[in-house]
Each structure stands twice: as structure tokens, then as C-alpha cells.
């Protein structure tokens, strides 16, 4: 189901891109006209849709663990927003209930709203805030049974720095503070998941001037 929806999204994105090219191709230009096309600087993105993927290091109990992210966003001038899914990929194991070892897993979906605070030729800085809801689960090591679950809320203000090496592609790094709420989970609490986060990733987008 998840893969199907992702393919749907990608298909629509490609259709949009192809549709734009077809629209450009359909413009008929008289042979005796002279047309001068000046290529605009590719960093001056005004609006578009983009897909982000990356990793974020997030606090778990006394250490840190990686969280993967997949994010779909829309940008209009300096404002952007979207939705993402975040999946903890770390390896945190403990004996939650004697005598069994359990592995921690958690994931959440989050909405994001942000603003481009600084913009130069191939570098920009964004300020953004994310709010999400998710599930934390203890999984029995012996049989991968999802044993105990708790829902939670996440609020995460972030600063994102983006570098644009080639057109339509941006590399980014984030620094933020994750604050977890409403977790009711044996062995771990909200504060075990709250703290400074940092991450990196890549953003691909289709933009219009």
C-alpha cells in the first residue's frame, strides 16, 4: 500500500514534469523570427514540488540513533510545507519484560511549515517547524512480535541549510530540537526521545520561476 502510494506520487510528479515539456514543445516558432532565450540563474526557485530523503540522528535514552525520513513538500516563493514519514532505524534493545529482550521501533508522520530565511546563489537557510503523530513499539526479539505500543506527539523546530550543486537537486543539513509528548511507554519516557537532533539528506524538486 505504502509503495503503491509512493509510486502514485512519483508518477504524478513525472507527469507534471513531462506535461511542462510537452507544453513548451507545442509552442510554434516562426522560422523567420529570432528568439533569444536567456537562461535564468537556476537558484532562483519561486515555487514547486520537491521530495526529500535523508537521515537524522535523534536521542534515544542515553544515546543517539538514526531516523530515516521521506518527505514531500511544496514551495511557494519563500514559504514551504509538506508531509513526511520518519522511521527510527537504530538498535536499542533491552529486557523490558523479564525474561525477553525487546527491540525499540518508532515511526511517525509529520507536517512541516517553513520559511526561507536566507538565499544566495547556491546556498539557502530555512527555518521550519514540524508537528507529527506516531507510534513507539517494543518488539520481541525472539519472534518479532509487536508487543507494546504507545502513541505520541512530536514537535520539532529546525534550521535547515541547503546547498545546490546542480539544478533541481539540493543537499541539506538540519539542526533542531525534538520534543516528544504523550508517550506512555514502559521503560522509556518522553524525555528519552527529546533533545537536539541533527541530520542530512538530499532534496530533488521541480520548480518554476
Amino acid at each position, binding site marked *: *500500500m*505504502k509503495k503503491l*502510494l*509512493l509510486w*502514485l*506520487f512519483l508518477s*504524478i510528479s513525472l507527469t*507534471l514534469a513531462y506535461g511542462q515539456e510537452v507544453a513548451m514543445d507545442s509552442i510554434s516558432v516562426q522560422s523567420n523570427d529570432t528568439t533569444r532565450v536567456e537562461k535564468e540563474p537556476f537558484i532562483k526557485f519561486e*515555487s514547486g*514540488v520537491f521530495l526529500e530523503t535523508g537521515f537524522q540522528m535523534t536521542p534515544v535514552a542515553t544515546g543517539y540513533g538514526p531516523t530515516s525520513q521521506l518527505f*514531500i513538500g*511544496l514551495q511557494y516563493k519563500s514559504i514551504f510545507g*509538506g*508531509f*513526511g*514519514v520518519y*522511521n527510527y532505524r537504530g538498535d536499542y534493545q533491552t*529486557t*523490558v*519484560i*523479564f*525474561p*525477553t529482550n525487546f527491540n525499540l521501533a518508532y*515511526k*511517525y*508522520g*509529520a*507536517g512541516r511549515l517553513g520559511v526561507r530565511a536566507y538565499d544566495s546563489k547556491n546556498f539557502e537557510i530555512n527555518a521550519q517547524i514540524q508537528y*507529527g*503523530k*506516531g*507510534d513507539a*513499539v517494543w518488539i520481541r526479539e525472539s*519472534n518479532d*512480535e*509487536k*508487543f*507494546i*505500543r*504507545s502513541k505520541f506527539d512530536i514537535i520539532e523546530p529546525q534550521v535547515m541549510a541547503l546547498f545546490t550543486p546542480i539544478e533541481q537537486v539540493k543537499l541539506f543539513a538540519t539542526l533542531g530540537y525534538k520534543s516528544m509528548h504523550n508517550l*506512555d*511507554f*514502559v*521503560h522509556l519516557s518522553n524525555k528519552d526521545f527529546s533533545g537536539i537532533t541533527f541530520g542530512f539528506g538530499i532534496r530533488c524538486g521541480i520548480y518554476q520561476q
Partner: protein
Amino acid sequence: MRYLPAIVLIGIIISSCYVSEELPADQKAWGYDFPSSVGLSNSVLYTLDNQIDSRNYAEINGLIIIKDDKLVFENYYNGHSRASLHPIGRATTSIAALVLGLLIEQGYIANLDIPISNYLPEYQNIFDSYPSKKNITFRHLLSNQMGVSWNEYTVNTERAESDFYQMKLQSDWAGYVLSLNQEAPPGLRLVLNSGSSMILAKIFENILSDVSLEEFIDNELFKPLNMTNYEWSYDPSGTLDLCTGLSISTLDFTRIGYLMLNEGRWTDKRRIINRDWILDCTLPQTPFLEDLDFGYFWWVFTDQFNSIYTNDTNAFWITGYRGESIFIVPEENMVITVMANNPYSNIVYNQSLNVYLKIIESLNFSEQDS
């Protein structure tokens, strides 16, 4: 931008796929702790866990230990999980006893010495044919002294020659039990007879005119205990099977044991069942074996058994015929649930009892734990 709504919708759907997955919520009845913190030996229980996993105790599918209001051991074996339902066989009669207590407290039944014939007009022909059966009371049903012929203890219930087995071939199980040959006057002979709980089920259904018996049990007993994982079955006549018809998760089965341990109160101190009734059920009412006395559908280890096997630790228990057992050890504030599936084993001396004895043994080794 005309595709914006579609893209946003897809984003929302993808996000919701990740956050709406249905997973079990945690139980809230007890906190978690390690066995060693409540006086049990971690090492002995680790060994026991490995032995169960290696099938040294035949087929044990779940084991839970509650001690000092803490869940200190919980594990499942042979592919079973916390949510797995297990038929608990004749241990279902433990529910019959609790329902009877509720109906007495609510005034539906005055006391245990009332003849059951008053509540069974549909079997008037049986009472007319066997007048001595008119003297059978609730107390006789509860204490296995109704006097009819029944070979439950001597013949394995899963064999065709068993009365238990034959009962299940009938359309009306209560009528079958009641119609069997009256071997002795009520109250004279003790014969283990779980089929009597089907007679109780029929009486309960006759008394409860506004709600079904299943709804009554659900509202008065299971919901207050936050029990969620269970299923009932019925006999072919449509009577709730209070003899063997409950399938339940190991965790929810444990809740029944904890209610008994706390003499009818739940974890929030709410009283669910009258304390006197719990004591009546769990104190020795009639002797059965050298090692075992009967309460009201609950069994009690004798002092002789305790002195030999448990270092004088008293306990009462209920068990199904495949070893689906709850052991309650009041002086240790402990409930042990062994969810076994061992057919054709002795109804008393079986692998579940061995698991119980091993856990009692771990009490005595606690000081050696690091």
C-alpha cells in the same frame, strides 16, 4: 498549482499509512519489574524459561507471574503471543463460580441451599422421574456432590468413554448431565463433575431475563477487569458453555487469578466480587485427594502437599484438562498463570504443576541472585 490538492491528499495518505497501524496497547493493571526485585530468582526463572522453550514441560504456550502487584515474568512459546486466545477447558468453571457469587449478591439467588429445581422448569420431567434430584442444591453443584454418575476423574475427558465427551455429543448438555443416573443422594458422595456448571449456566440464563448471560459476564466481570481478549462458545441448544467454553489470552486469564488473590478487588481497589464469596470458593469445602481439597469449583492444595512440595506455602488453583492453570499463592502475594496444551495428562499431577513447583522453588533461591 492545479495539482496541489491531489499532491497534498497523497501526502496525507502516505503519512497516515505510517501512523494509523493498529498495534496492541500495553496492559495497565501492573507495573513491570524483575523477579529478583520481588524475591524470586532470576537465574532459576531463566532456566525455567529455557526449559519450557525446549519443551521439557511438553507444550507450555504462555507463562505469567505477578508478584507484589508487579508483572515480573511474561513469555510465550511455540509461536503464541500476548493476544493469542487459548481454550481453557474446565477452568471455565471458575467463571461459573464467580457469576454465581454475583447473582447471590444481587439478590437473584437467596443462598446456596435452595434446590436448583426451582429454577429449571424445562427439566420438570427429569425431576419428576427422579424425585431425589429435587434435593440437589447450588451447594451440591459447586462441591461436586450432586450424586449423578460421572467419570470425569477416572477417564480422560478426551476419550469417547468419558461422560464429559459424551455430554458434548448431545444437543442439550445441561439436560444430559441432569438426566444421568442418580448413584447417591445429593450431598453424600463426592464425584468430580464439571458438567454441573452447564446446569448452572442454564439456571443463570433463566434468571437473567433482561440480558444474556454472556452480556452479564461481560458487564459485571470482564469489563471491570479490562479484559478484551476472549471468546465464548455455546452448546448446540444455545446455552453459554460455562463448562469449557471460554477461550482467553494468558494475560486476561491472569486477571481472573489476580481478582481471586485480592479477594474480589481489582487493582484500583474497586470491589468486583463479594469478599466472603471469594473466600468460600477458595477455602477447602470438601476433601478430594490426599493432596487436594475442593473449594467451590476452585481447588486447594492440602497441608500435606504443601509440607512435601512447597515448603508449607499454601495455594489454591484452577486448571483445565490440558493444564491451563492459574495458581494463586496468597502468602507470597503471587499469581502464576501457566497456559499449557498437554492433552491426555493427569488433571492434577501434570507439567503445569511442575512449572508451579519450579517457581515456588525460585522463591527459596532468591538470596543467591546477584
